[in-house]
């Protein structure tokens, strides 16, 4: 083979340049071999467009979410720097100047998302505060020398980016000499030379100083070594009066870490202010809200798939980026696997595409289970027409798609209303987050669930002001929708609201009546007292239903219940839902959250799972002796304790293997033995490669076992 050699491990293959020009477009890889590749190109384009839209939407969302944080940060920077500016007259004597303004940015454990935040932070700061922004990572700074080196080179780069090249040629110091002194003198000259020029250049930015601050961002501060941080802070605080430094710490854990990393002597040189970023759970809620709980994007995710994605998020990494990656993968898989996903686009476009559907695609539609169910419900004449006539089918499909669209629009409105109702209940029977409610609703009829019943029961006990605020929120939700689908409902909610308001006046009178009705208890004996109390209780129970408020509340709850029953039908009940819903949750799990150890163990322990040979079929815990060598060796090694004697192991192996071949020839030749030994050697070295055993010096010809338990 061309790629195996005893002298090198890298092999570069470069095709001829002329040949390379005819490269295959990506769409061609989109063909799914299993399905007839219907409209694969169109599908790929649709995927691409949709993904671009979703991506830009998420980016925009992230920007908006970060905006608050960034604004306060910028405020802090400007404020702390203006102190520096003000005091510039009497630098030396101001003790306070020794303190380096520091922003501690608490970003949460989802380290993977931090990069994105820092990138946009740098951008924002560059536009608003200062051109001198350096971001450092612990990996690049094992000691102070590297720290300063990195800092200097990045600073110079910032400077060069902004201004003409000539500055660079003059100002670059000798490579060997990195010190805070040289840095600050460099800064002074640069700032003096370019300060005024810059103010003219960048009129748009609000605040421009003659000495813009130098901002150093330490990504993931926990991973910096304590010594480097301490030294740097001490050194730079000495130069603070000529080098306006501002630090930003990125912190993943908790602010306590600052004091754990820095002793008091050092941390007293810092003037720290804390900034908390939005928690990743809220972040996720927003993303879900804007991407999935909306009719804006035609693509939807089934309950199982959504659960896989949220579980990865909640139990593995809290990473928004990974969640979005999962979303991208599900989108891709959907378009790849489902030929009808061609119709998974905006309604007008989909209607256009229906007209050009091929005969095969029409067949695909007819094959959809949901469509078949729909056809069965139709009159027999229409059934025949749908199944035989393509034009009828296309017209019907158009209508169905339209219905589906309307269904989704109503669905999400009602879902939000229901969430408003249930999210304030004690113990959250239907979940605190809307995604939990969404999952329940996706699965099956939500009104059949126990949780729903208990939620309704709790709703029937709500106080008036709570109910009114909920109704108000619902009204806002319904009102905000541009469509007129739920117009009457909006009106009805409004009516309820006014009725509640009117109730105030009515209730006064009622109370009076009530008060007159109840007479003070007269002096009686115990028996009568009990009796009269019972009577009163009875009375109260009957009268309770009659108060106007309670009737109204009952009405509201019933109204909500009706809404849910008519609009929150599970998507599986809708014809053509397969077109827009991605349901292959297992592929998501396989590709995003794989379990290599389990796969390895299964392959070794139960080869029948992969090699569908009847001879390999066996009962739990045992494998037949004709199984692949490595499986037998693995199985034998499982019986051993910490150390394994190679001789015994090989003998056991030989015994098993010869037993398998015995029936053929009863005598075992020497050559056979040799071969079996060779097979054993191979199996053992493979197990070593896989990391189950390792050689040990504890005893001659022994190996140590490295795994324990099932795997």
């Amino acid at each position, binding site marked *: 083979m061309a*790629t195996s*050699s005893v002298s*090198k*491990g*890298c092999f*570069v293959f*470069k*095709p001829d340049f002329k040949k*390379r020009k005819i490269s295959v477009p*990506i769409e061609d*890889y*989109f*063909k799914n*071999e*299993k399905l007839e590749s219907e409209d694969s190109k169109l599908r790929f384009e649709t995927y691409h467009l949709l993904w671009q839209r979703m991506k830009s939407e998420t980016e925009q969302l992230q920007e908006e979410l970060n905006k608050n944080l960034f604004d306060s940060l910028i405020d802090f920077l400007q404020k702390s720097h203006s102190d520096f500016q003000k005091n510039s007259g009497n630098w030396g004597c101001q003790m306070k100047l020794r303190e380096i303004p520091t922003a501690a940015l608490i970003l949460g454990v989802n380290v*993977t998302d931090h990069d994105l935040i820092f990138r946009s932070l740098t951008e924002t700061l560059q536009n608003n505060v200062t051109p001198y922004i350096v971001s450092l990572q612990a990996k690049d700074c094992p000691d102070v020398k590297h720290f300063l080196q990195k800092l200097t080179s990045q600073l110079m780069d910032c400077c060069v980016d902004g201004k003409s090249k000539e500055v660079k040629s003059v100002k670059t110091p000798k490579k060997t000499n990195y010190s805070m002194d040289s840095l600050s003198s460099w800064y002074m000259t640069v700032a003096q030379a370019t300060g005024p020029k810059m103010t003219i250049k960048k009129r748009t930015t609000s605040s421009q100083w003659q000495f813009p601050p130098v901002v150093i961002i330490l990504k993931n501060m926990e991973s910096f070594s304590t010594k480097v941080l301490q030294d740097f802070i001490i050194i730079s605080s000495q130069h603070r009066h000529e080098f306006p430094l501002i630090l930003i710490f990125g912190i993943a854990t908790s602010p306590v870490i600052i004091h754990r990393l820095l002793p008091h002597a050092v941390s007293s040189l810092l003037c720290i202010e804390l900034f908390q970023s939005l928690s990743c759970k809220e972040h996720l809620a927003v993303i879900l809200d804007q991407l999935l709980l909306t009719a804006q994007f035609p693509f939807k995710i089934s309950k199982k798939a959504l659960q896989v994605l949220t579980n990865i998020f909640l139990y593995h990494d809290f990473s928004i980026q990974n969640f979005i990656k999962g979303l991208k*993968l599900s989108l*891709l898989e959907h378009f790849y696997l489902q030929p009808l996903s061609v119709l998974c686009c905006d309604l007008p476009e989909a209607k256009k595409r229906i007209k050009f559907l091929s005969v095969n695609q029409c067949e695909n539609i007819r094959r959809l289970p949901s469509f078949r169910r729909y056809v069965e419900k139709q009159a027999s004449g229409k059934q025949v027409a749908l199944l035989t006539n393509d034009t009828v089918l296309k017209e019907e499909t158009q209508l169905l798609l339209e219905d589906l669209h309307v269904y989704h629009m109503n669905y999400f409105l009602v879902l939000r209303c229901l969430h408003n109702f249930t999210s304030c209940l004690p113990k959250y029977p239907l979940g605190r987050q809307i995604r939990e409610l969404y999952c329940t609703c996706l699965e099956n009829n939500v009104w059949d669930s126990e949780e729903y019943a208990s939620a309704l029961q709790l709703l029937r006990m709500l106080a008036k002001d709570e109910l009114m605020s909920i109704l108000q929120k619902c009204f806002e939700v319904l009102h905000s929708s541009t469509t007129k689908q739920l117009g009457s409902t909006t009106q009805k909610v409004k009516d309820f609201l006014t009725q509640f308001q009117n109730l105030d006046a009515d209730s006064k009178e009622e109370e009076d009546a009530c008060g007159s009705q109840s007479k003070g208890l007269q002096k009686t004996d115990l028996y009568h007292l009990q009796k009269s109390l019972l009577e009163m209780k009875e009375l109260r129970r009957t009268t309770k239903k009659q108060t106007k408020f309670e009737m109204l509340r009952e009405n509201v709850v019933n109204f909500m219940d009706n809404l849910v029953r008519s609009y929150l039908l599970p998507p599986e009940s809708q014809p053509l839902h397969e077109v827009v819903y991605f349901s292959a949750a297992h592929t998501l799990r*396989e590709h995003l959250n*794989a379990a*290599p150890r389990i796969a390895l163990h299964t*392959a070794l322990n139960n*080869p029948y799972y*992969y*090699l*569908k*040979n009847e001879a390999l079929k066996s*009962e739990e815990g*045992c494998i037949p*002796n004709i*199984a*692949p060598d490595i499986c037998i060796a693995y199985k034998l090694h499982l*019986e*051993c304790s910490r*150390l*394994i004697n*190679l*001789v*015994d192991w090989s003998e*056991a192996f030989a015994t098993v293997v*010869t*037993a*398998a071949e015995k029936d053929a020839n009863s005598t075992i030749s020497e050559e056979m033995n040799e*071969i079996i*030994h*060779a*097979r*054993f050697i*191979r199996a*053992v*070295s493979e197990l*070593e490669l*896989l*990391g189950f055993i390792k*050689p040990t010096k*504890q*005893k001659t*010809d022994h190996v140590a076992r*490295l795994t324990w338990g*099932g795997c």
Partner: protein
Amino acid sequence: MAKLALELAKTSRKVPFDSKADPEIKKNVTQKSKGHSTSEKVQLENNNKTEFLSAPPRSLRKRIIVPTSHCDSESEYSASNSEDDKEVARDDEDDTEAVGLSQKSRVQSRVLPASVSKRTPLKKMKRDKASDLVEEYFEAHSSSKVLTSDRTLQKLKRAKLDQKTLRNLLSKVSPSFSAEIEQLNQQHEKLFHKWMLQLHLGFNIVLYGLGSKRDLLEKFRATMLEDSIHVVINGFFPGITVKSILNSITEDVLNHMGTFQSVLDQRDWIINKFKEDSSLELFLLIHNLDSQMLRGDNSQQILGQLSSLCNVHLLASIDHLHAPLMWDHAKQSLYNWLWYETTTYSPYTEETSYENSLLVKQSGSLPLSSLIHVLRSLTPNARGIFRLLIKFQLDNQDSPSYIGLSFQDFYQQCREAFLVNSDLTLRAQLTEFRDHKLIKTKKGTDGVEYLLIPVDSGTLADFLEKEEEEA
């Protein structure tokens, strides 16, 4: 020998894999023993021990080790254990009630003789309960002394084979289940198009599962990557480093002739280059990303950063059980993996061939061929010098105190053979050898330089033989 054969014949019946009826027997054995009172259990244990004593050669098999402490502790805790066991046993009985009593009685008659030599029932019983796995672990690791037999491979006739004979022997074995394995491979090959698609869309792909994935990746390379620049990296190659990977990218792919201060510089340079030129596209195929040489944190970080570029596509395979532990969240997001399970069951021939495997003798064929190659490129005089050194070393191979040939003596000998005329020329030659790692120099206690060839004498003798044949 005859005794051994007899032994084997006897044991072949005992091994659980050969008889179909075995599992149920075992199950019943455990059940039965569970029901037993502790005294019986201990007795059983003792039976076991005596059996082992009576058959010393067999006692080498591991389970026989049955540490004495093991059964001691067992009887100590039996009071509490037996209750649990009974419960479990009852559960088991519920399950197997349908199977019927007839089987049980049938088994019992068979079990009695068998049970003595069976795997220790205690052990099996423990495995029933998952929680006990933990205890099992600590049990095995608590006693510092592990009891295994003292047999060593030296006493066995076929102890170590060298790589070549191993290969020859294995080539005689017809692979089993080739049809099924072929089917598996075909399933994987169907994914090639999808892989290409996903690679292009910014994902990277990692393959896991039992069996060598080398052939699969080779096939992928041959069918899909004909027209694109790609680098194949054998992670299992013992000399592979990130530096060499980066070098082949800068030198061969990007045609850059300069040098870099550090690996990090080189990485940054590559990243910039790829960011600047979006028409560049590179596929990296890494066999065994989890190999000894690449699994370090720094290497993974650099490879991750490379693969996070949108025009670098990475397709890698991992085999080690704990491979995913290499990556923390940050690295995983750099790699942006999509996992694919590709169990192939193909032998790891290439991957294990470099390894200093436990049972494979260092044949020395590799040093021999490299010796020949290097020496061929040298002048006749240099060859003569080297031959002198070899001869001297072979003459002294038996003396344990031999530390090498001193430079002065060597110079004398070379002069006498008319190979050099000054010690400068000799030194020049020696530098050449040293560069090829053919010789080692060591300062003796007296401050004199001693020269040594770090190759074992068998290889050297072979080499001399070959040299003479050619001459």
